[in-house]
């Protein structure tokens, strides 16, 4: 979430080592064997886009359900020359984002940043950054439940068979029922997709607004679920299609309002209640995106007033 | 002990006859047909119902079976239809396209007999087996529908035949369970005759009918004969017998045992 910030960082402070790497830990906390195991899993995941690869998820210094999957993936791929950005629902400033960023700073000494364009690795919980990524970047998703059929088919063994046989009638049934009950497909986040025309995949609980960004993304997208012990991936430029019916096509959310801070009409907006009388404000969810737009607006305003002066 | 219709007893009959090739008008050949019922529930008592009946039937013939009650007339008809398994002898019916142009009913696979019943052999039983909830019209149309005739056309032809048999129009959409014996019998006859089978087996088709309707049935049989059907029938009333028969075959009760009941 994007808190209207009182912490406007200057350009100099944007890229920094928040602390020095602490001694007594292996680089990125995990031992080399574990990183090797994770990398093998990641290679397999990249080789079969959308396929959930089981891996030996480790105990991390934070509980399951707090991003251990994403952290393990990042730990496996991060190198001394990387620059890391961590966001949680689009914000760099939530407790989670701050803690995870600090964790990596401490265990690797690697540079961290809030600027999407300057990061080589972006770890995210539940959002994709608004600014398009490049083929020099990796996006690491934190995934709570990697199995898109989880609620429909509780039997794990049966689920595995369904994926193996591409027997996906069940998810269509769910979408059908949605239309029956709500008039349209009711899923708004964690909207199931088909990756590379083959595997049914959960894109993690990103809003469906972000689903189009999965498709043919220039960046490598890696997904880690620590508690469920699964890793999966979407290699760069992979076709990713959100499920729908021919006569009920996939649609993203739209707002009547624009961002109260930067005026954006293209980004995902959070709705905030700002006082007891229920006054609402809509603000960009992606804090860096909003920040950059505001900087641009300020810069142009300064130029103009400079010219006018 | 397993009993199937394609059992070993048929192997003797596999030799096949050339009669159907040599005689293009031959439709049915029964040779030395024997039937014994073994009642296991009564200590395995055997009841001989047929002691060796032979019959050749050609196109256009109507053979009437005569004989005292219990002589096996109904039994013989049922053996010809495959409803009873003959204990001995052979029964062959013309089957165009088959090896030697016939099918031996005795020992045939159920699949083949079903095909023959659909396309070649029709049977009018003594009693209408009533299927609940199916209208008289649909019962009569069914043999045509199972041959692939369009439902509408089948129903039309059924209507024509029912009308001819004087079945009142108001009864057509009703299930025959509540019909009188005579009405049921006429529905039965319509169902048996509508597909214009080339071999017809008629078991007392006029038993519950009045004179007028007996006459209608007799005409229908006559028309079938003219079409070239080969008919074997049992008729209790003399008049119809005289009207339709081209030949008469007399059956006598087997000498070896007095049957307990007419095994029909």
């Amino acid at each position, binding site marked *: 979430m994007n808190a209207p910030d009182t912490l406007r960082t200057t350009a100099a402070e944007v890229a920094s080592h928040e602390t020095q790497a602490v001694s007594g830990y292996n680089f990125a906390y995990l031992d080399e064997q574990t990183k090797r195991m994770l990398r093998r899993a990641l290679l397999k995941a990249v080789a079969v886009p959308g396929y959930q690869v089981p891996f030996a998820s480790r105990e991390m210094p934070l509980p399951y359900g707090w991003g251990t999957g994403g952290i393990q993936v990042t730990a496996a791929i991060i190198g001394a020359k990387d620059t890391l950005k961590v966001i949680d629902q689009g914000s760099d400033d939530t407790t989670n984002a701050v803690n995870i960023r600090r964790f990596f700073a401490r265990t690797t000494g690697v540079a961290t940043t809030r600027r999407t364009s300057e990061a080589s690795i972006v770890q995210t919980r539940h959002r994709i950054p608004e600014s398009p990524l490049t083929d020099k970047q990796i996006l690491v998703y934190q995934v709570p439940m990697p199995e898109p059929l989880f609620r429909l088919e509780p039997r794990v063994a049966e689920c595995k068979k369904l994926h193996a046989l591409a027997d996906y009638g069940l998810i269509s049934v769910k979408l059908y029922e949605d239309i029956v009950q709500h008039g349209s497909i009711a899923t708004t986040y964690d909207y199931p997709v088909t990756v590379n025309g083959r595997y049914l995949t959960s894109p993690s609980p990103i809003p469906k607004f972000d689903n189009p960004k999965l498709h043919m993304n220039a960046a490598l997208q890696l997904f880690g679920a620590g508690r469920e012990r699964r890793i999966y991936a979407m290699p760069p430029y992979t076709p990713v299609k959100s499920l729908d019916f021919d006569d009920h096509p996939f649609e993203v959310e739209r707002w009547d309002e624009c961002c109260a801070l930067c005026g954006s009409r293209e980004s995902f907006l959070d709705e905030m209640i700002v006082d007891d009388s229920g006054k609402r404000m809509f603000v960009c969810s992606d804090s860096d995106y909003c920040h950059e737009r505001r900087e641009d607006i300020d810069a142009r305003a300064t130029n103009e007033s400079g010219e006018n002066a | 002990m397993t009993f199937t*219709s394609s059992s070993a007893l048929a192997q003797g009959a596999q030799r096949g006859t050339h009669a159907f090739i040599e005689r293009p008008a031959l439709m049915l050949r029964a040779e030395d047909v024997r039937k014994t019922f073994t009642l296991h529930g009564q200590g395995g008592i055997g009841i001989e119902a047929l002691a060796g009946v032979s019959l050749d039937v050609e196109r256009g013939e109507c053979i009437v079976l005569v004989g005292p009650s219990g002589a096996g007339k109904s039994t013989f008809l049922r053996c010809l239809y495959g409803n009873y398994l003959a204990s001995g002898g052979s029964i062959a019916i013309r089957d165009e396209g088959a090896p030697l142009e016939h099918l031996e009913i005795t020992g045939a696979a159920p699949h083949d007999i079903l095909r023959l019943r659909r396309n070649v052999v029709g049977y009018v039983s003594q009693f209408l087996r009533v299927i609940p909830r199916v209208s008289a019209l649909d019962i009569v149309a069914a043999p045509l529908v199972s041959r692939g005739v369009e439902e509408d056309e089948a129903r039309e032809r059924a209507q024509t035949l029912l009308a001819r048999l004087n079945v009142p129009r108001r009864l057509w959409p009703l299930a025959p369970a509540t019909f009188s014996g005579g009405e049921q019998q006429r529905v039965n006859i319509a169902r048996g005759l509508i597909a214009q089978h080339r071999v017809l087996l008629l078991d007392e088709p006029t038993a519950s009918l009045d004179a007028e309707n007996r006459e209608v049935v007799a005409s229908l049989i006559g028309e079938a004969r003219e079409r070239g059907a080969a008919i074997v029938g049992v008729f209790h009333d003399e008049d119809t017998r005289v009207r339709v028969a081209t030949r008469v075959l007399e059956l006598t009760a087997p000498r070896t045992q007095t049957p307990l009941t007419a095994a029909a």
Partner: protein
Amino acid sequence: MTPLLSARALTKQYGGRNGCRDVSFDLYPGEVLCIVGESGSGKTTLLNTLALRTEADSGALHYTGANGETLDLRTLSEPRRRLLARTEWGFVQQNPRDGLRAGVSAGANIGEPLMAVGARHYGQIRHTAQQWMQRVELDAMRIDELPSAFSGGMQQRLQIARNLVTGPRLVFMDEPTAGLDVSVQARLLDLLRTLTTTLHLSVLIVTHDIGVARLLAHRLMVMQGGTVVESGLTDQVLDDPQHPYTQTLVASVLPV
């Protein structure tokens, strides 16, 4: 003509006894075959073995598909088996609740097999489901209700619609009328009779009720103690039973 389904010496036993033993038959397109027997006769084991829900111990089992290819069912891979079950076969369970998804609407239940083979148009799926509801004499307006809102007989009809919607060639039925009231049974049997003839289905029905066999089946197999003791045309087996057990069975039917 090649048989649709062909079994030779098929055996499935539990600990060397029970189950079914040495069963052989051929089933042709458009034929309805009834397997009749009392409890413990092995008829349900046989059905499940034929439908590949249980693995046979020995024997041969072949199926000739819509494309004319004959498959050895005993060596069929699981993916192909599941594809076959989805496209060319149906299985109607004794208890309709075992054959339906309780948590989704009637329309979804009927539409699922279509969606499983790639149907992608919501409106068309719905329309097809409504047509099938009418065919099985269910009120098409109730398409959005859950199966639990229907009576037992209606649920069974719903299950039948779900099984027939993909146009299968072979349908297995396990005691489809058991547990239903007599009048409901009659209606269901009537429906089955009509559907099997108009759709030219091959059907294998297991039942303990001879009346069902008489009404629906062209052919009959009588099982006792795990083996087939008699088989043949339905009218022949019931009117002229040869085997002692068959004679007892026929004699035991209560007259109406």
